[in-house]
């Protein structure tokens, strides 16, 4: 009595503790679950880019509906509203505002910014050709603008600075705003201050855009209503978090209620039902608590996985309630302890073996799944063993399962007659899988993306319409100071310019375009002649030109002023769009402390040999930096992330095979018979093979989550196999119709639990569902088919 009270109290205390731990944990849905704990340098840079790079901060805004003029008005109004919000670094819609405000800056600092500023430029010959060129410009369509600055800037440095700074790949313009190529949508581009990995910050930015859009919609008159659509990494992260949370909750409620109804029909008692669910709840809570304690942070994927624990843990109580047939309490406990628990325990240990191999994985996502499953299964098992027998009602209605079981007893011989046929499975499966071996596994990280395909397509379209930001290849410069990084950037830029001429790339951005290094600024300043020298050179230069020096007096004044003006620093850029441009490309790191990174995004050529994909090796050869404090890494983000996923997948594959071996060893030790081990393993292996072939024939390429699904199938199926094995060894099989009924009910709950998941819109959850539901059903059928009848033994 006392020990029983003790076990229940200890259990209750532990559960409360676990709940407290679970409540004080941080939950995250970012990509870090799929990133290795000890990344290589390139991987760290990749992670950095994905979490806080410029690309991760961009929100693509798309306004549809009405007519072009209405969309343009809405685009301008929305941009105006959003620019006032501090949470956005910049909001672009193609409107003039940016150029207007930046023009003054460019004109003012032209002698620091223009890369044409050299000593030769201000010699007689240099001035002559520069001024002649500007005169041509006066006659060009740009003449109207050029004329305003001609007297101050006859060498055209402002235009040069403009060319250097303002990207050429501007999207299509109509009515003064960016428009998609199909001319049905206005486009805007917002850059958030919040990092891409800051899902809360992204969510805040997204709600603000939606809110301002509603206000704009009410104020701007349009022919037809406007529709807003958003895309971008931050939008996806928020969507994914919401979908996973929403689906995980919805699906677990759905599957638990269906399971509950099924069990209620069988037990005809709510008390029994509630008690039957205790191992599930204990397992889920213990799993989360264990992950929280072990990792400090719980990934959304792990939580989503929690649903699946219902499938296995609810089986434990089913076995207990239906298989223990004595009415007297002490006898009942005794039969449970001696007859059934050892089998359940072995099944549990088998499952743990399977999952334990995930724990040492280099990827936090996999390791968390391992820890979660182990802790959850142990908690569920212990609850079933020590707590449930004391709590369970004196009489559990077993009339329905026993009637049910009697039918199964008659069906069993039928199944057994087929078992020879099942040997066809490995032969056929081998053939099919070998023939399709190249499409068996999906090796792209995007396969795991919780983003629906439609959203991915919208995103791709928006990016292609906006032109620039679908950055895939970047050069990362790492150095001890911003000056060092800027100087390195300046050394690389000429190589990139020639790559553009060779059509290897279409364009690039570099931090030094926005802010020349101090050394360069000093060098440019040194090339500006003194007042009298410049006046003399100018006098001689214009002799053959249709212009008089008296008209160029403002030029002499401006150059003289530039010789003593302060140099441009990051602070000096404040208030211009160049500030945001620079901040995205020149980043101060916290690790290592006070180091700096320069990012040079490359834009793939639109045609030719390297169309749409930058040849990273060619870039590496082209941008050789002198040995020094700064080093350059060329990073192909997609290739890197796919490589990362491939290593993740092969990591998981190896670990799963190891887990399978561990299960075999465990079974050998406990069953002490190779024949019995084979009999336990074969139906499970056949079930997994069959599902693999079926998925392959349905053109589903397998991801890491399918693999986890197979592991789960083996973990759950091992219970069935072990029960059949035990029944065979005890020489009392068919008689026990309750035994067969308990297995089928346990299996039904599993199939329901995972079957529901198969319909999830989150690929990760759907993959688990479509693997485990049919897998466990087949495992049970195959176990029955391979079981030995008592007559033969």
């Amino acid at each position, binding site marked *: 009595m006392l020990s029983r009270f003790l076990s229940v109290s200890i259990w209750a205390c532990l559960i409360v503790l676990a709940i407290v731990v679970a409540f004080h944990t941080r939950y995250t849905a970012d990509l870090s679950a799929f990133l290795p704990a000890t990344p290589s340098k390139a991987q760290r840079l990749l992670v950095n880019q994905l979490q806080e790079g410029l690309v991760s901060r961009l929100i693509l805004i798309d306004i549809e509906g009405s007519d072009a003029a209405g969309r*343009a008005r809405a685009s301008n109004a929305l941009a105006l509203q959003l620019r006032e919000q501090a949470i956005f670094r910049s909001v672009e819609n*193609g*409107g*003039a505002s940016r150029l207007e405000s930046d023009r003054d800056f460019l004109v003012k600092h032209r002698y620091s910014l223009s890369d044409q500023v050299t000593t030769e430029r201000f010699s007689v010959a240099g001035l002559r050709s520069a001024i002649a*060129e500007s*005169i*041509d*410009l*006066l*006659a*060009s*369509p*740009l*003449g*109207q*603008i050029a*004329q305003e600055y*001609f*007297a101050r800037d006859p060498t055209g440095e402002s*235009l040069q600075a403009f*060319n250097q700074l303002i990207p*050429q790949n*501007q999207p*299509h*313009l*109509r*009515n*003064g*705003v960016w428009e998609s190529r199909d001319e049905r949508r206005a486009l805007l581009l917002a850059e958030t201050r919040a990092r891409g990995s800051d899902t809360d910050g992204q969510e805040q930015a997204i709600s603000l855009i939606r809110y301002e859009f509603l206000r704009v919609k009410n104020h701007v008159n349009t022919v037809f209503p406007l529709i807003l659509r958003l895309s971008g990494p931050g939008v996806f992260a928020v969507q994914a978090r919401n979908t996973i949370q929403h689906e995980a909750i919805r699906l677990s409620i759905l599957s638990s209620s269906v399971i509950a109804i099924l069990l209620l029909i069988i037990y005809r008692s709510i008390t029994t039902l509630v008690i039957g669910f205790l191992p599930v709840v204990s397992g889920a809570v213990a799993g989360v608590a264990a992950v929280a304690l072990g990792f400090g942070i719980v990934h959304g994927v792990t939580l989503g996985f929690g649903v699946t624990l219902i499938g296995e843990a609810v089986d434990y109580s089913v076995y207990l309630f239906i298989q223990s047939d004595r009415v007297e309490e002490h006898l009942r406990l005794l039969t449970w302890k001696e007859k059934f628990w050892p089998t359940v325990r072995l099944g549990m240990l088998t499952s743990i073996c399977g999952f334990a191999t995930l724990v040492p994985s280099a990827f936090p996502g996999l390791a968390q799944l391992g820890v979660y499953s182990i802790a959850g299964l142990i908690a569920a098992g212990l609850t079933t063993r020590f707590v449930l027998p004391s709590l369970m009602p004196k009489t559990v209605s077993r009339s329905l399962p026993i009637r049910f079981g009697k039918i199964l007893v008659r069906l069993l011989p039928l199944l057994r007659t087929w078992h020879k046929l099942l040997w066809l499975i490995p032969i056929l499966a081998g053939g099919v899988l070998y023939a399709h071996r190249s499409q068996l596994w999906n090796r792209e990280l995007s396969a795991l993306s919780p983003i629906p395909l439609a959203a991915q397509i919208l995103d791709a379209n928006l990016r292609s319409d906006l032109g620039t930001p679908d950055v895939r290849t970047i050069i990362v410069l790492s150095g001890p100071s911003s000056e060092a990084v800027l100087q390195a950037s300046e050394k690389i830029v000429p190589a990139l310019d020639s790559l553009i001429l060779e059509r290897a790339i279409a364009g690039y951005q570099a931090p030094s375009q926005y802010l020349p290094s101090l050394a360069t600024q000093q060098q440019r300043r040194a090339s500006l002649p003194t007042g009298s020298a410049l006046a003399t050179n100018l006098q001689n230069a214009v002799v053959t030109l*249709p*212009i*008089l020096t008296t*008209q160029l007096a403002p030029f002499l004044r401006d150059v003289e002023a530039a010789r003593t003006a302060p140099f441009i620093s990051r602070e000096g850029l404040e208030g211009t769009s160049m500030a945001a441009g620079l901040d995205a490309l020149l980043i101060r790191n916290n690790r290592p402390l006070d180091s700096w990174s320069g990012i040079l995004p490359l834009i793939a050529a639109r045609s030719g040999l390297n169309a749409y994909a930058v040849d990273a090796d060619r870039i590496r050869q082209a941008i050789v930096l002198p040995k020094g404090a700064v080093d350059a890494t060329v990073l192909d983000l997609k290739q890197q992330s796919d490589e990362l996923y491939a290593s993740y997948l092969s990591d998981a594959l190896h670990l799963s095979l190891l887990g399978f071996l561990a299960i075999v060893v465990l079974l050998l030790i406990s069953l002490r018979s190779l024949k019995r081990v084979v009999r336990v393993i074969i139906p499970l292996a056949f079930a997994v093979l069959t599902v693999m072939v079926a998925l392959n024939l349905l053109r589903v390429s397998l991801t890491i989550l399918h693999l986890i699904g197979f592991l789960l199938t083996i973990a759950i199926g091992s219970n069935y196999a072990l029960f059949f094995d035990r029944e065979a060894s005890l020489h009392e099989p068919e008689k026990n119709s309750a035994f067969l009924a308990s297995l089928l009910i346990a299996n039904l709950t599993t199939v329901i639990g995972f079957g529901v998941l198969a319909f999830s819109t989150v690929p990760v959850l759907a993959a688990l569902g479509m693997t485990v539901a049919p897998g466990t059903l087949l495992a049970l059928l195959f176990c029955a088919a391979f079981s030995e009848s008592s007559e033969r033994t």
Partner: protein
Amino acid sequence: MWRFQVTLSFFITFVFLHGSVAADSDKALNDLMTQLAQSQHGRTRFIEKQFIRILARPIESSGELVYDAPSHLEKHTLQPRPESIILERDTISITHGKFARSFSLVAYPQVGVLMMSIRQILSGDLIGLSRSFAHDFESGIHGWRLTLIPHDPKVLHIVSRIVLSGIGSEIRDMEFERDNGDYSVISLGVNKSN
């Protein structure tokens, strides 16, 4: 007395003629615009002389104009240095040396007003033309002359007057004047329209 008579006869002649001249010129302008509207595609060489106040000499350039009704106009300068300007609906794309960009006419009217005016004339849309310009049309045996003055003050600042002259359905010269005294003259070659 004689003076009076002369004045009177002038006066009478003027009053008498003015009505018929006005009616004639309206009809002639209508005819011209109708003929222009019929031309769907045109390609012609041009010579442009720009008189810019701060420059001591005019700048001369030459090239080719291409028009596709109703909204596409290209001006390719070949001499003294290649330059191109393409107007497609409300977007203008300019290539000048290293400079290659597109502008929205809404955001940067100063870049494309001239091209836009040329397009409006070539399209033969008299109603559209009347909406944008106050116009005056004179025609005689030596040809016709169409003077346009923009209504929009923003445009007026960029081009204060456009004078077109030609013979029959052919435009020979286009003259653009700015309010600061700068002006340019584009002379069109034989129109090889088809």
